[in-house]
């Protein structure tokens, strides 16, 4: 064979093999397409707040502790173990060795201390969880794998709150910081983290097209390792129109849907071949805040009457199309939930009995118009308003239904005078502790936002929630929170309606979905596999 022919043949073989190899790589790449209407993107653990942003962060960054199972306390994660000092003020974490950031450097105690200082100084995201508890500089590096958090005051739910604390790569941030307001730390790498990550999580950000898509690529050296079938590449697509999301799921152009579709859309998807709808009870409370400082809700008997007049069964069966009736403010799946409390059922006779005990006369009550405010565009809340108005006409109340933009409601929540009689509110657990559904709702120190629109004030409850926060012993803490739940449901501080169901649609080849109960954690793609 002469030389040119031999070279040509060898060349052809190389090209063919190369092509085959590329083909094989592409054929084996496991790709998952997730579709959501939410446009927010954020890879900065110090700034993320909503479900989408948290999903971005939890896929790319790691945490000291992790909420692995619904209703259970968080488990060790980056921190293999921890010790708490006798006074409950110092938490010392022993870090896992050999955890790598996406740039290949090792995660150490320096990164943990830096990340908490950064979180507190930027003062956004979930930094409010540690306001007054930790100040910048309170995290001490003992050695590369040991770090101590020195708290200003005993804070019982501290470990639980760490599920919102993502660790960033100090060296990478410092190498990419821009000029900014934080002195030697410049902008603390905020601009850098707008379009990429600095974490050690299972996925890295490959590319971002604002308002359109994010591409995540698996991090080969992730400390938990990888198994066959796990997702190599995630296409996170932003599809603003719910009808389009439904069509994409049916056609197989998407593998996993957001949770914000209507119950009817999920019913439609569940009936479609190749689509499975997962349903999980949520650590979420849907309730109607009753402004306790506005007549007639300043009278406990009127609030109880309203609680007995409402038709919970219709709300859950016909409007939410599933879920559990709320038992007080703490979701039934939350650790520390107290089920030994008053659970109101529709009973018009009892409602009338309580109205008769009210300090307001029948005529006075009839002359009042109760305002119900819900978030513009949320159909379930509109239907709940209609049901409420219908139920309350039976005990001679007039209800005016009004929708407002969320921004307006947030503004209304800052003062008792501007807060309407009823406000429809969803409150999802951000950390697995009853603290989030007691202290934040009932303690006057937390007043001024949508969670505390009941403006409920009871010195005993204030003292109990204060004490619970500073109690290190978990059982004792839960006992105190349990007492709060009993008092506040007995006094009908709000109209507690449902712990709704969280639904997501999947193509039937997607397996391994797990909902741990905390916002954003079920979007961690590491748990998923594609079986074809």
């Amino acid at each position, binding site marked *: 064979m002469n030389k040119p022919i031999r070279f040509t043949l060898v060349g052809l073989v190389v090209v063919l093999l190369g092509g085959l190899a590329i083909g094989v790589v592409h054929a084996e790449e496991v790709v998952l397409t997730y579709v959501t209407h939410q446009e927010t993107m954020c890879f900065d653990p110090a700034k993320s707040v909503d479900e989408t942003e948290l999903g971005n962060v939890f896929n790319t960054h790691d945490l000291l502790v992790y909420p692995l199972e619904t209703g259970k306390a968080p488990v060790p994660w980056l921190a293999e173990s921890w010790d708490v000092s006798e006074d409950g003020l110092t938490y010392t974490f022993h870090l896992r060795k050999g955890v790598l950031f996406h740039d290949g450097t090792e995660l150490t105690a320096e990164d943990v201390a830096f990340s908490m200082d950064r979180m507190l100084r930027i003062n956004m995201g979930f930094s409010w969880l540690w306001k007054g508890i930790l100040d910048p500089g309170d995290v001490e590096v003992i050695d590369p794998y040991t770090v101590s958090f020195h708290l200003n005051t005993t804070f019982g739910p501290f470990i639980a709150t760490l599920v919102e604390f993502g660790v960033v790569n100090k060296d990478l941030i410092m190498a990419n910081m821009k000029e900014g307001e934080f002195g030697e730390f410049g902008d603390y790498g905020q601009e850098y983290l707008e379009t990429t990550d600095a974490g050690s999580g299972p996925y890295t950000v490959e590319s971002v097209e*604002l308002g359109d898509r994010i591409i995540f690529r698996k991090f080969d050296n992730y400390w938990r390792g990888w198994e066959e079938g796990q997702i190599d590449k995630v296409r996170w697509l932003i599809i603003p*129109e719910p009808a389009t999301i439904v*069509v994409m799921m049916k056609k197989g152009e998407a593998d996993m849907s957001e949770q914000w579709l209507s119950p009817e859309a999920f019913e439609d998807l569940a009936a479609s071949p190749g689509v499975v709808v997962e349903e999980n009870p949520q650590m979420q409370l849907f309730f109607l805040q009753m402004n306790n400082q506005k007549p007639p809700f300043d009278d406990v008997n009127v609030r109880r009457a309203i609680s007995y007049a409402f038709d919970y069964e219709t709300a859950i069966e016909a409007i939410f199309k599933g879920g559990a009736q709320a038992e007080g403010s703490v979701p039934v799946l939350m650790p520390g939930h107290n089920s030994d409390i008053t659970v109101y059922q529709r009973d018009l006779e009892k409602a009338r009995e309580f109205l008769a005990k009210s300090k307001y006369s029948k005529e006075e009550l009839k002359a009042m118009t109760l305002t119900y405010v819900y978030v513009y565009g949320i159909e379930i809340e509109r239907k709940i308003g209609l049901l409420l108005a219908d139920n309350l006409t039976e005990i001679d109340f007039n209800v005016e239904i009004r929708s407002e933009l969320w921004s307006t409601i*947030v503004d209304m929540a800052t003062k008792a005078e501007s807060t309407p009689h009823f406000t429809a509110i969803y409150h999802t657990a951000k950390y697995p502790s009853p603290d989030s559904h007691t202290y934040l709702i009932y303690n006057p120190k937390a007043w001024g936002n949508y969670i505390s629109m009941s403006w409920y004030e009871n010195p005993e409850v204030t003292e109990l929630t204060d004490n619970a926060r500073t109690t290190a012993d978990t059982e004792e803490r839960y006992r105190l929170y349990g007492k709060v739940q009993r008092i506040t449901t007995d006094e009908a501080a709000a109209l507690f309606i449902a712990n709704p169901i969280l639904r997501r649609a999947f193509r039937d080849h997607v397996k391994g979905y797990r909902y741990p109960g905390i916002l954003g954690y079920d979007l961690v793609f590491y748990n998923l596999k594609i079986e074809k």
Partner: protein
Amino acid sequence: MRGTYLLYRLIYMVLVLLGVSLLIFFLARVVPGDPARLALGPEATQEQVASLRHKLGLDRPLYAQYYVFIRGLFKGELGMSLITKRDVFKDLIQRLPATLELVVTAMLIAIIGGIPLGVLSALHKDRTIDQISRVFAFAGVSFPRFWIGIMFQIAFAYILGLLPITGRISGDPPTHITGLYLLDSLITRDFPAFVDSFKHLVLPALTLSLSPLAQITRITRANMIEQLRKDYSIVMRTIGMPEAVNIYKYMLKNAFTSTLTVIGLLTGWMIGNAFVVEQVFSWPGMARYGVNSVLRNDFNAVVGVTLVIGVGYVVINLIVDLLYGYLDPRIRLKR
């Protein structure tokens, strides 16, 4: 003469934009709802809210905030978006090309389809072709764009499977040069990306083009009918001037002035109103960003988007005014 006119128009443009910025800046700041609280999330403490208000300058008098805004404008800064937590200018730079690509393509379809259809309608006034064109025009104006978009999706994407349902591209976008995918893929010779992005563009551009196409058709028809009645047109025909020359060189040129005005206005209108199409087709453009900003009280983004739309209107009107001079020398001479 033309240079002075251009200078005069540029000064006028700056004044208009200053007026727009002043108006929208103050309007965006008096709507209810605390932007700082919205940005921080509802659980944030009052101290955090106060701190961010200070950082954003919201605790300063309005005139001082406006001064800071104008100063930032010269540095290419429009302030932090409370939704994306990035500078609004950066957001707009990323999103504007998507809207421009959509609007320009839709306008091209509207012009290329609307003018010949208008001419045909006028030439065959009250005959079948005119009646069909009239029905088409009414339908184009009266059917809501979201409905047309969804119908297109069902027919061409879901049932026939000819075109994609949503998005700008299925695979990886072409290397970023201008942000216009068609242009970037041509420049980089990324032909698969060109075909992919072209396929994605067809349905949204067609949906957006229908209403302008109908309006251009109607206005061209009306003006052409007027020209057909004029003495010069009758004389041309009498002396045996070829019909095509008569129509396209003389009559259409004379009839085009008001069509051009409409095209100018429609282009500006489309930049701001492409929202529905961007929403239905998940098109990551600026119009969708603008509407979301309004709904979530993202005041810096609202001001930024409004300014861009304002610039769009003013620049397009300037181009239209300059083209008037080309179409009608009398206008040029008067100036």
